[in-house]
């Protein structure tokens, strides 16, 4: 076999492997679209469910997921980005920072149901928040933090040291250099991290199972201490807990969740490419 044949074989193999990755995604999306598209209507998206969820829409679940994602963002973005800035720009290599890093690595490996139980113990019961948007958002935020911190820290470290040196040489304080030179160049990476984390939070079921999600609650919340329905949990419920559920509505719910997550993904890559164009080195 000559080297050109080997090269063709190599490319062929690599192409096949790439295809293997893509095929399941395409199949999942196709299946959900084909079976669920029929359920999508203005009514389905904007009305309350009734008749034990077997009829009506999924409006409260959509609202609930959006509220939970926003609540998660409000808590996890400032803490996450702040923590990343501290670790990347200020922290010296001590036993404390090594412990923090170790904790982050371990936290990102914790199964999501464990976060759910932790949220139940700490927020719902001990802090007496009850099953509420607040408790759910906080639980999701804790789950999201390691993702945001580690991706943001990586983005900050990718900015060459020389930029900090130049800023300092021009009379900038450490914070001024971070604020005006380092952060703008790390923005695209930080936003990627934030959205990755939030996307995961928006699609999770286990952490909200005990902390916020209502099984069947055909009304909108009026305070952060109210429980809400949420799309992932609603999907779980209508898929497994409701006998006689029309399959079209199950797939319709899945489709809405999928579109919500994918559209956030698209928005995130648009934001990312906007900031990447402004970056230079």
């Amino acid at each position, binding site marked *: 076999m000559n080297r050109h044949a080997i090269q063709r074989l190599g490319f062929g193999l690599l192409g096949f492997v790439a295809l293997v990755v893509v095929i399941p995604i395409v199949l999942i999306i196709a299946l959900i679209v084909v079976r669920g598209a029929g359920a999508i209507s203005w009514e389905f998206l904007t009305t309350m469910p009734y008749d034990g969820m077997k009829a009506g829409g999924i409006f409260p679940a959509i609202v609930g997921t959006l509220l939970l994602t926003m609540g998660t963002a409000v808590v996890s973005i400032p803490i996450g980005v702040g923590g990343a800035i501290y670790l990347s720009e200020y922290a010296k290599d001590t036993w404390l920072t090594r412990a923090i890093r170790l904790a982050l690595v371990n936290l990102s490996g914790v199964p999501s149901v464990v976060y759910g139980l932790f949220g139940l113990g700490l927020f719902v019961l001990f802090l007496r928040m009850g099953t509420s948007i607040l408790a759910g958002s906080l639980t999701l935020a804790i789950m999201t933090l390691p993702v945001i911190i580690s991706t943001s820290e990586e983005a900050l470290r990718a900015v060459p040291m020389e930029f900090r*040196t130049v800023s300092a040489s*021009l*009379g900038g304080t450490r914070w*001024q250099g971070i604020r005006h030179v380092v952060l703008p160049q790390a923005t695209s990476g930080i936003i990627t991290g934030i959205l990755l984390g939030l996307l995961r939070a928006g699609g999770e079921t286990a952490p909200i199972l005990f902390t916020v999600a209502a099984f069947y609650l055909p009304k909108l919340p009026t305070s952060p201490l109210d429980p809400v329905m949420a799309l992932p949990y609603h999907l779980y419920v209508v898929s497994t807990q409701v006998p006689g559920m029309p399959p079209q509505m199950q797939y319709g719910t899945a489709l809405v969740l999928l579109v919500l997550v994918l559209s956030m993904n698209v928005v995130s890559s648009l934001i990312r490419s906007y900031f990447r164009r402004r970056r*230079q080195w």
Partner: protein
Amino acid sequence: MVTHDPASEALSALQHPVKIRTENVNLFYGDVHALKDVTIDVPLHAVTVFFGPAGGGKTTMLRLINRLNDLVDNIRMSGHIWVDGDDIYAPGTQVAALRRRIGMVFALPLPLPGTIRSNVVYGPKLAGIRQASRLDELVESSLRQAALWDEVKDRLDTPANQLSGGQQQRLCIARSLALEPEILLLDEPTSGLDPVSTAKVEASLLELKKRYTIIIVPHNVQQGARIADYAGFFLMGELIEKGDGREVFNRPQNSHTEDYVTGRFG
């Protein structure tokens, strides 16, 4: 404090008061002894050249004068550095304010992200200058001093990284000048430049020394000899020889210096 050595005598011959004085400066990077007992007086409004083979401590010495080595971990320093008689390593020194008085230009030009204008006004803005007319004034005057104004005056708001290498380096010089510093530290500022740009930068240095105290690490011996009013030869962390620029380059006293300036090593 004040030591009477040949260097001081050379200085008095130059009729320049002392701007920067270092005394027994030692520096360790981890276990590496990078500077050994460096004692030197740098005259006001003159060009002082720090030269010698790579790894001799020239750049390290420059970075001590504006305390940039503060940013590096795992460093130990002893000795004293005075600027205008103030010990800049004394506790309570305002480091950012000190660095505003001491501009620095690095071997590799590194424009900050943004436009030509935003690069020049970066320092002044951080220093609290807000007035647009004052900032415009600084942009023009510092770009003129760096011999860049005529080439960029019509495109101040284009990205700085679109400039050529030589223009970027002059932009970096202008960026330092915009703070109206008293001292300019230049670390091989022409190493990436073609001969024409190098000549422009050298010409502007000769102009600048009327108002600034300049320390430069030249990118070769010839450049050092061309511009030195005063010179120090660094070898393996030691300041081997110092004195009037013409003397050091033409009639070196130390055999190592002589070997180096005549091209026998380094």
